[in-house]
């Protein structure tokens, strides 16, 4: 998180560090990408380190990794009722990726990849398309039966089908926006408090800085909760795709 006293949203500006193209596609390395890589490296590095020599009686690091894995596994199995076990690695990767991207932005001078709509949108649309793909591969044209729930009177179908379709299509948007907005709002508030702390007279500096500390604590909780919500909703969408309608 970098500070700019003139623009509270300045620390969300994407800065390109290296121009790169794959044919006509722009794949430039920006601060988003750098901090996303750092997040990925952090997750892999930490988990690699604590699980390098696993022991039957775990140390602190291994215990934390096992707790994290157990937590994600429980949530996955609770929300994907049939064959949830095969989605555990995917959900664990999703959870750790979002959590690391959320948390890395709390380091002063860093950047929050999940405060970018493109990032959260990519993740949300990927989950949405994956769930839709699962449903299509399982039920074929039966995919569309989900928009006409069983037991609904035929008279109501012209009303129900559009509502169901809108609700279905809104899933990736809400999923992406929820994470993006939470991260943006939290980091903006943090930035504002920090700028306020810098701008305040010396005898009042403790007030915004004190709030900053509280806000950072709150942001850490929010980072975890948002990753959790994203994963749980992803599980719900996958479960919904696998259920018969």
């Amino acid at each position, binding site marked *: 998180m970098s500070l700019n006293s003139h623009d509270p*949203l300045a620390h969300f500006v994407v800065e*390109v560090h290296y121009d790169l193209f794959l044919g006509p596609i722009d794949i430039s390395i920006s601060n*988003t990408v750098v901090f996303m890589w750092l997040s990925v490296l952090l997750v892999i590095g930490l988990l690699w380190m604590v699980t390098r020599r696993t022991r039957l009686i775990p140390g602190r690091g291994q215990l934390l990794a096992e707790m994290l894995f157990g937590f994600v596994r429980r949530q996955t199995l609770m929300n994907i009722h049939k064959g949830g076990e095969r989605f555990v690695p995917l959900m664990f*990767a999703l959870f*750790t990726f979002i959590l690391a991207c959320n948390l890395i932005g709390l380091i002063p001078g860093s950047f929050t990849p999940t405060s970018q*709509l493109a990032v959260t949108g990519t993740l949300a649309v990927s989950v949405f398309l994956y769930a839709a793909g699962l449903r299509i591969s399982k039920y074929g044209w039966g995919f569309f039966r989900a928009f006409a729930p069983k037991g609904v009177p035929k008279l109501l179908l012209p009303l129900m089908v559009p509502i169901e379709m809108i609700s279905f299509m809104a899933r990736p948007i809400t999923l992406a926006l929820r994470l993006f907005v939470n991260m943006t709002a939290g980091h903006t508030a943090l930035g504002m408090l920090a700028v306020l702390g810098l701008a305040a007279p010396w005898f009042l500096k403790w007030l915004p800085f004190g709030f900053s500390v509280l806000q950072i604590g709150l942001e850490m909780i929010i980072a975890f909760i948002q990753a959790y919500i994203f994963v749980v909703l992803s599980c719900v969408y996958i479960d919904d795709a696998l259920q018969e309608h």
Partner: protein
Amino acid sequence: MPQFDLTFFTAQIFWTLVSFLVLFLVLGRWVLPRIADILNERTQLIKEEIEDARHKREEAEELKLDYADKLAAIDGEAKKMFDESEKRLIERREQLMAEWKEEMERKKRDFHEETEVARQMAMRDIRAQSADLITAATEQLIHQKVGEAEIQKMLEESIEELEKSSPKNN
């Protein structure tokens, strides 16, 4: 808002997908199997320990039942032995009592017989001495000789009267 600037969307989308895929592959290939393995190993070990404990508890239950059976058998045996011993003691006591009673009866009989013999001997002595005394006394009283047959007759009559008047000995 800078996040809505479409200029960087393609790069961000591309690298998000690549980064996530790399993370997913690395975790799925190297990290998660280790965690899953150690968790399974621990679960297996706990299951084995529980199973072992269950076996041991069953064995202990069996041993307990076995001991209870043995204790019951020992109790029965002890009771049987005690009953037999008591029965033998009672029989022995009855036998001893019978022998003692028989002995006492025999002694009583012997005693009666001896008493009777002594009495008869005493009576004979008394008669003999009494006859002499009576003869002497009578001769002094009447100053003449009394026939021995008469004295004997008088004596017999006196003794008979004495026997009639005196209480019977057992």
